[in-house]
Each structure stands twice: as structure tokens, then as C-alpha cells.
């Protein structure tokens, strides 16, 4: 019995040790992220960007003389685990604000806890509309809501493409579903008929049955919403089937990360995607961030990275302005945020039924010669758009 008690005691100490000791001259910020599982790619981009921003801020002397000490915890995209991390941060580590998470399901779980515990939570890249529609006082969102993700893309459709028919393909997730609903509404507004609105399984690898349906419907525009792998496979199989349309397009996420071009290769060419940010924007710091990231990791960051990068600046700014570093002090400071960041201007507003939502300008990008180019709106464009896109036959 005594031995057994020892084993239990050791295990218990082990658990306690897992909580590192607080250092005095730093501000510790633990960020929950998906670092394993399907969403790991996005988590990785964001982790690198958080770190870069913290390094820069610390190099300039930190916040009120304290250095930002970032660390990360892996939630693997599971709401249960995300919640465990956040409970620990609030209760054990007494962290006065929460930043991070990626999937909408996790963000919802975290937001509910943050609101209950009156701890400000800055959502960085979770899109589901519902998160900032709950009358939460303590939940702030820096990225645009899914409902508006495709705003720039829609105006591109309206002014350039003027399609009569559109097919929407989306993956079975909260992000995919709300993205398709938003596009359906937008299509109605610009007078395009939705000839097909089909869902596919997340993690699907064979899209051919679905694509033959698309072929039969002959839409002018194909619009898809999905995370990483499906986007690449979808375009590859469209190419294999020689399925032609006037425009291939995607709704951010999987279509707007460098892996899309790497994975889909020439099938990615001319694909237009909605996005929240591009490396060619003229916001202060955008170019520096993009180039620095590329120099370090050999790839340009996606909007996820930029949002994460800016989130650290927003946090630092709020900490600087906060009366005191309590939960309410930081909340009030966040609410008053009006900052120009590499991600664009950040300001948390209450409108259209949303609370504490940053309504950032969205953009449309197109893959041209294996690079993302900003094509819409015109004042941000880095290259003119290519439309209509050449058919698969003409391409070689």
C-alpha cells in the first residue's frame, strides 16, 4: 500500500510540475492552438507568426518594461481540450486574457468559458458568425466573420464576371456550412442562380462523383469552401476531368494558403479566392512581416499568420493602454482599440448584430504563375485579373 501511495504522490507532483512557475519580469501569455491533427497546418503558421511578433515587441523593450513570454499548448482541435487549457490559464495561471484557437468549434467552447469567467478573449482566425453574435461582453474577434469573407469576391463577381449560374461545393463543417449559406445569399443579390449546392465529407479524397454532377449542371462559376487538403484535391480532379468553367474560386482557408499552390501545382493556376489579407497590401508593416516570414520559413504566410501576428500587437497595445492588468482593465482597453496593424486597421465594433467585431476589408486573390496576386478591390490590386480563365485545353 505504501509503495502505491508513493506512485500516486509522484504522479501528482508530475501534474503540478506541468504548470511552470511565473517569472516576475515577463508577461506570460499561453496560446491554445491546434498543433496536431487535421488543423495543424494552420496552427503552425499561426505559432510562427505569434513568435515573430513577440520577438519584435520584446526587441523594442516589451510592454511597460515587461517582456512578452509566449508559450503554446496543443488543443488538437478538440473543444474539450481547448476548454481544459483555458480553464487552466484563467484559474491556475491567472492569465488576464486569452488569445488564440483556430477551429470554430474550439473557439465557441473557449468563448463560453471566457464570458462566464469574465476574461477577455481575442479570437484570431475562427470564422463562424455565431461566435460574436451571442451578446458576449468579453469576446473580441479580429478576423472578419464568415458571412463577410467573400465580400470582395462577390463584388468582383458582380462587376467583372456577372455570372448567371454558380455551383457551390462545401465541406461538412461549421466553417463550410456558414460559408456556403453566405454565398447563396450573395449569389441571389447579384442575380446569379445557384444551380448546385453540395456538401462533401471533410477529409474526402474522391470528388469525381460530385464533379460529374457539377459538369452536368454546367455552372459558369464554381465556388468551394474547405480547409487544406480538400481544396488541392478538388482542383486537381477538376483538371483531370477537364471540367471547364469561366471561373474557379474558393472561400479563403484552404484556398488561400501557400500549400494550395504547392499541392495543386498547375491546377491551382487562375483560381480566385476570397481572403482576409495578402502579402501585397500596403498597410504599414505588411511587407516587412511577409518578407521576414518568407526569409525564415521559405514560404509566404497566409492571412491566418498575419492575423496572429497582428493579434500580438493588438494585445500589447491593449496592455499598454489598460489602467491595470486585470480582466476588466484589459477588456476596456481592447474595446477602445484603434490600431493600424500589418493585418489592417483593427477596431472592435457593435453592429449588424455582432459585438466586439472587427470589420476588416476583405480581398480577392488569384493564382498567377504560381503566386498569389491581389486582384480585387482595385485599389489594392497588385496585378490585373485574368478573366475568363483559359480552358484546360488551351493551357498547354
Amino acid at each position, binding site marked *: *500500500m505504501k*509503495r*502505491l501511495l508513493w*506512485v500516486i504522490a509522484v*504522479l501528482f507532483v*508530475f*501534474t503540478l*510540475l*506541468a*504548470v*511552470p512557475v511565473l517569472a516576475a519580469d515577463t508577461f506570460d501569455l499561453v496560446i491554445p492552438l491546434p*498543433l*496536431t491533427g487535421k488543423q*495543424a497546418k494552420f496552427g503552425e503558421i499561426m505559432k510562427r507568426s505569434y513568435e515573430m511578433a513577440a520577438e519584435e515587441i520584446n526587441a523594442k523593450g516589451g510592454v511597460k518594461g515587461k517582456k512578452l513570454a509566449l*508559450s*503554446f*499548448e*496543443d488543443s*488538437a482541435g*478538440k*473543444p*474539450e*481540450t481547448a*476548454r*481544459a487549457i483555458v*480553464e*487552466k490559464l*484563467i*484559474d*491556475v495561471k491567472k492569465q488576464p486574457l486569452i488569445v488564440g484557437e483556430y477551429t470554430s*468549434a474550439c473557439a*465557441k*467552447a473557449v468563448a*463560453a468559458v471566457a464570458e*462566464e*469567467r469574465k476574461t477577455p478573449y481575442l479570437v484570431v482566425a475562427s470564422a*463562424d458568425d*455565431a461566435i460574436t453574435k*451571442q451578446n458576449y461582453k468579453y469576446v473580441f474577434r479580429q478576423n472578419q466573420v464568415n458571412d463577410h469573407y467573400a465580400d470582395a469576391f462577390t463584388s468582383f463577381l458582380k462587376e467583372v464576371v456577372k455570372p448567371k449560374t454558380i455551383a457551390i461545393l462545401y465541406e*461538412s*463543417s*461549421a466553417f*463550410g*456550412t*456558414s460559408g456556403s449559406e453566405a454565398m447563396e445569399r450573395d449569389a441571389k443579390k447579384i442575380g446569379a442562380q445557384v444551380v448546385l449546392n453540395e*456538401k462533401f*465529407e*471533410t477529409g474526402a479524397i474522391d470528388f469525381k462523383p460530385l464533379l460529374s454532377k457539377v459538369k452536368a449542371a454546367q455552372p459558369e462559376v464554381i465556388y468551394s469552401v474547405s480547409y487544406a487538403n480538400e481544396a488541392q484535391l478538388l482542383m486537381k480532379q477538376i483538371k483531370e476531368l477537364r471540367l471547364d468553367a469561366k471561373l474557379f474560386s474558393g472561400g479563403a482557408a484552404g484556398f488561400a494558403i501557400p500549400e494550395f499552390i504547392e499541392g495543386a501545382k498547375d491546377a491551382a493556376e487562375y483560381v480566385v479566392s476570397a481572403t482576409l489579407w495578402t502579402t501585397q497590401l500596403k498597410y504599414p508593416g505588411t511587407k516587412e512581416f511577409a518578407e521576414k516570414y518568407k526569409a525564415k520559413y521559405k514560404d509566404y504566410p497566409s492571412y491566418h499568420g498575419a492575423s496572429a501576428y497582428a493579434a500580438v500587437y493588438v494585445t500589447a497595445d491593449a496592455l499598454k493602454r489598460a489602467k491595470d492588468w486585470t480582466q476588466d482593465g484589459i477588456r476596456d482597453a481592447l474595446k477602445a482599440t484603434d490600431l493600424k496593424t500589418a493585418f489592417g486597421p483593427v477596431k472592435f465594433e457593435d453592429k449588424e448584430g455582432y459585438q466586439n467585431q472587427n470589420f476588416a476589408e476583405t480581398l480577392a486573390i488569384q493564382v498567377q504563375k504560381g503566386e498569389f496576386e491581389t486582384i480585387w478591390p482595385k485599389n489594392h490590386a497588385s496585378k490585373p485579373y485574368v478573366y475568363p480563365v483559359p480552358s484546360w485545353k488551351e493551357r498547354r
Partner: protein
Amino acid sequence: MKRYITYIVLGLLALLPLLGLNSYLMHILILVIMWSVIGMAWNLLSGYCGQVSFGHAAFFGVGAYTAGMLYSKLGISGWWGFPASVFVVAVFALGIGYICLRLRGPYFALATLSMGVIFRIVAENLVGVTGGDLGIMIRERTWIDKTWYFYIILIVAAATYYLVRKVIESKLGYYFVAIREDQDAAESLGINTTKYKTIALILSAVITGFAGVFYTNYMGYIDPKVVFALHDISIITIMVVMVGGVATYWGPVVGAIIMVLLAEAIRSIPKLGTAHHTLFGVLLIVIIIFLPNGIVGDFSKLKRLFGMRRPAP
């Protein structure tokens, strides 16, 4: 000592919230108890009755959605899911049993596995009924403090433990074990195997459904991918019991402690990054290789290992 150990453990657990634990530890404890409940339920069907199910997420999800839909469709508290789920889950379990229980061994396992997936896909696509992939979000959870959640799941766990024990020590339990050991022999002895397998399935399903109801009320957000998850629910359920000890009373509890508490402890070691899955996986492999009957099942082996056993006279 041995006779009272159940009461002692229960009593100690009931006193735990009085220690004023922080909400992080309470969250982990609640998850441990919730997983013990699911583990005990699975153990009843698969451990004692020998019908290995790979689809317990189906019952968990149906329970969770019963509570969620009472809230979202009828506007009443999700806690009514407890009484409602008994009926709903039992009906679904009857349906599944009708199809799957004709199959034996690996075929039964595969059929239940597909059932779990089918339920998820159905829940994703019946947007009008379940809300589809957008899930159900409970705007305000009943309590901020975790004490009540703790007691509710503790009561469910205690009742489950009592029920499993009563069933296994009764005639019913002997039928279950007889079916596990040799279904044909059991049949030839006059045991109506279909009937008793169905009973085991329904009992197991209803208890798992309870855990689902609790999950909805506790977490406040469900979607089909979360509650009908193949890996995160069905497979973890099996792991909980395998690691703890199949067909033992305390196995699922010990398994839940390992799968939740130890997993969380390893995950929180700073600077380990993404390697925690590897570390935890290796640990599970070691347990399964050296303790094939689980920690409780091979407890005598463990005792010897730690030198706690007195030398044989």
C-alpha cells in the same frame, strides 16, 4: 477494508469539491468521471457480454443531441435530456441491435463502427432537425461553478457502478458471461442469446446516452463531428476499458484516469510541443504489451513489479 473500498472512494470523491479545487482540476475530474461512466457502459456490453462495439459514439451522440434539441427546439432546459434520453436512446439501440446483433465477433464490431459513422453523417445532413454542422450552442450554461456538474456526474457514475455490479452479480450477468465465452453453448443451454444481448446493448447504450446528455449541458456546444466522433469517442471508449481492465469493476475508472488525467499531464509538460502524442502513444503500447488484461486485470503482476507482494509461503 476491501468490502468498503467502494464507499470510501465514493465518500472521498464526494468530499473533493470542499477542498476548493480550482476549476481546471475540477474540469479534468469531471471529464475523468464522465469517461468512467462511458467506460463502464461499454464494459457491460463488450467486456462482460463479449459484443465488442466500435460505435459507442452513436449512443453518446444521440444522448447529447436529445438534450441539445430539447433546448434548441422546445426551449426547455437541456437537463430534461436525462429522462428523455432513456427512451430515445433505447429506441435507437433497439434499432441498431436488430441489425447488428445478428452478426458475431469482428462483423459485429465492423457493423457498429459503421453505425457510428452513419449517425454522424445523418446528423450532419438532417439540417432541419439537428442544425447540421453548425451544431447546437447553449447560450447560458446552468452554473458557472463546477461543483454541481461534479455532483451530477458523480451520481450518474455511482448509479452506473451500482447497476453494473448488480447486473453482473445476478443471473443476468452469468448469462452475459456465458454468451461471451461461447454463444452456441449458451444457446444450447437454453439461454435466449438474442434477448440477453439486446438487454446488454440497451443498458450500455442508455448509460452512454446519459454521459452524452451530461456533455451537452456541461460543454454547452455540440456538433456532429464532436459527439459522433469515431476516434475521439468510440475508440477512446475502447482504450479506456482496455487500459484499465476489461470485465473488471474498477477497470474503466482506472482507464479513464489514465486516458484523461495522464494524457492531460503529458500534454501540459512545457516545451514538449507536438511530441506529447508520441509519448502518450508509447505509454499506451507499453501498458497493452505488458498488461494485456489492463491495469486492474493485471494488478497482481503490477504488485509483483513494485515488490508489494509478500513472497509465497
